[in-house]
């Protein structure tokens, strides 16, 4: 009898444990909090974890709590792939993955499709992955590099008094000499040909902590604008070098990875007036106040330095987590509310996202990011960006509305490039008309 009682207790405990386990959705956090890009990694994943904590504080997603495990990649592709392999099957399997690194994203691109785990690459990675027919498990959400480059030209055109006014102007593309820096070249070349401006390409060798030669060339060329496509120490160095060569910072337009507080504060006065692209409108939002109140006040905040709440990287992390949780919520609507979703089901959620203004308002993030509506054909969901300017203390939006470039031209380039990739990898593109 005693044995039966003990067995019953053990069975009950195991069942309870299983039931608790069944209500947890696992998200691996392949992050980087040390090394050369720690500022980006800690801010982004700090924001994402803060938002997921907030969701849990409010009862999870229809009762399903989010759990995560961090793995330090140091922005190193080899370590990143190792982290992915270590975490992908943990806690019942990963719902999604976000490596925040083009190198790691490339490293696991084929693996995520095999493992049926959706990968988000917010504002980075392969631009042609926006074509969901060829890349069913990759989601370059909000805006890809190509759409960003197109939005840059739109903004510079507006600044000049119209796109036609760019004819005969000189634009320097100062870029990190890597796949990241070269990614927008097809778009910039196409625009240069279409609009008749001169595009001067000047690479900067990694890590970019010495740029006097490049800025002397810029001084010599006397360009109308400089597009700064940098990352890490390259950005502050570029701003300092611009100052020492007397180039006005107001004429420099940075990529969004060159537009955080960590990029401008080290440059001091040299950064004043500098503009960059962004997919978040700088400012404060109800969702950030909620994070302060319900997460940090309860001692559950992820960032040591509370002043980083609402910073560019933190807000970008919050944005990512909003889209992750909305995808899980969407998947639950189809596959069962209050249930733990598989990677494949979450992929469907990502493909059917509709985070419109009304939803953003409900989430306390209205205006913080552009509305996102994805489909089988379009894994990007927006293509919009804004321009922000550093006033010496904080970022301020200088474009009141979201701007987009020539979307039709970019879509054509995306489809051509994706089709090429499909042939190369022997992928049969999905027929979106048959997708549910």
């Amino acid at each position: 009898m005693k044995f039966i009682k003990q067995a019953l207790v053990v069975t009950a405990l195991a069942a309870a444990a299983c039931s608790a386990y069944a209500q947890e959705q696992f998200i691996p956090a392949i992050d980087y909090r040390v090394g050369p890009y720690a500022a980006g990694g800690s801010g982004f994943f700090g924001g994402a974890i803060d938002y997921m904590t907030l969701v849990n504080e409010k009862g999870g997603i229809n009762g399903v709590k989010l759990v995560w495990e961090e793995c330090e990649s140091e922005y190193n592709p080899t370590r990143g792939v190792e982290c992915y392999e270590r975490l992908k099957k943990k806690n019942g399997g990963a719902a999604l993955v976000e490596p925040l690194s083009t190198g790691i994203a490339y490293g696991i691109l084929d693996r995520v499709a095999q493992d049926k785990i959706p990968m988000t690459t917010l504002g980075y990675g392969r631009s042609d992955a926006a074509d969901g027919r060829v890349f069913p498990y990759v989601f370059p959400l909000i805006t890809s590099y190509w759409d960003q480059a197109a939005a840059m030209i739109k903004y510079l055109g507006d600044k000049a008094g119209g796109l036609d006014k760019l004819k005969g102007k000189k634009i320097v593309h100062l870029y990190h000499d890597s796949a990241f820096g070269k990614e927008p070249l097809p778009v910039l070349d196409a625009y240069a040909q279409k609009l008749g401006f001169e595009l001067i390409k000047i690479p900067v060798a990694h890590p970019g902590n010495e740029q006097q030669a490049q800025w002397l060339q810029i001084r010599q060329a006397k360009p109308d604008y400089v597009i700064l496509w940098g990352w890490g120490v390259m950005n502050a160095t570029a701003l300092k070098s611009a100052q020492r060569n007397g180039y006005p910072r107001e004429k420099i337009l940075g990529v969004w990875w060159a537009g955080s507080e960590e990029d401008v504060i080290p440059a001091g006065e040299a950064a004043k007036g500098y503009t960059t692209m962004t997919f978040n409108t700088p400012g404060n939002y109800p969702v950030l106040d909620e994070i302060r109140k319900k997460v940090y006040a309860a001692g559950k905040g992820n960032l040591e330095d509370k002043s980083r709440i609402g910073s560019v990287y933190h807000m970008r992390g919050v944005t990512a987590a909003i889209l992750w949780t909305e995808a899980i919520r969407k998947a639950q609507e189809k596959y069962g509310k209050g249930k733990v979703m598989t990677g494949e089901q979450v992929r469907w959620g990502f493909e059917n996202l509709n985070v419109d203004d009304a939803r953003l308002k409900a989430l306390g993030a209205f205006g913080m990011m552009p509305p996102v509506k994805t489909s089988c054909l379009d894994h990007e969901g927006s293509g919009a960006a804004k321009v922000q300017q550093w006033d010496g203390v904080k970022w301020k939006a200088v474009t009141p509305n979201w701007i987009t470039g020539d979307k039709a031209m970019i879509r054509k380039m995306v489809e051509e490039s994706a089709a090429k990739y499909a042939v190369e990898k022997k992928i049969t593109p999905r027929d979106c008309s048959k997708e549910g």
Partner: protein
Amino acid sequence: MQFFFEVLIAGLLSGVMYSLVALGFVLIYKASGVFNFAQGSMVYFAALTAVGLHDKGLSLWLSVPLTMVVMVVLALLIEKIVLRPLVAQPEISLFMATIGLSFFIEGLAQAIWGANVRALDLGIEDVPLEWVLEKANMAISQFDLIAAGIATVLVATLALFFSRTKIGRALRAVADDHQAALSIGIPLQHIWGIVWSVAGFVALVAGLLWGSRNGVQFALTFVALKALPVLILGGFTSVPGAIVGGLIIGASEKLAEVFLGPYVGGGLEGWFPYVLALLFLLIRPEGLFGEKIIRRI
């Protein structure tokens, strides 16, 4: 022609900044015959400590000397824990130890002060000198000129220290043969402690100048990469060689980037100094000012 000279001057001034980092390598090499892989990490550690103390509310006048004290303590600990057990061991063992040390120092710096990027304002404006800009239409930064001045004073002081002082001569003896130096009564531990402290001081100066220029961040460890070709060119054992090597590397990489770059797609700065250093190695393996070693077989 005016543009050529502008690029040349900018290159020479950049070269001085490389020399500052190269000096730290030379010091350790002179004392132990070992290439100190951890020099870049020491630059980062020193700059982060100085700015970290400054952020805690101390003035720079206080945080910089305090950092120097920290660097001396670090040097003594390195000597006691890492170097002393390796006396008379093959040089490769010492080199491997400095690799480990490099990762340890990087981790320690981030564990103590965090990995955030920080600004450092030394009060020296990094803007072009107006009268040069007006008269010659050249953008010469006053920050670079001051940095060049500091490097020159540092090199002159260290050159005198090595050639005119007892410690300097003892140091050269230690570099030649640890055991022979010990047998004639040269206190090896004492010498290594001093040299690593001086290398710490050089790292602090380099860290402050580079940190003020680009921000105090992990990428400071990469400036060591710029020092390697300087050392190959100038010689691993020569203090003046570090400065001459720096000037040659700085000037040649800038001229190559500006005038050859457009023909090969740019981005030469990353590899051109190494090619140049390699060519020098073929002609003069000991570098311009290095000691020529003749071994009898």
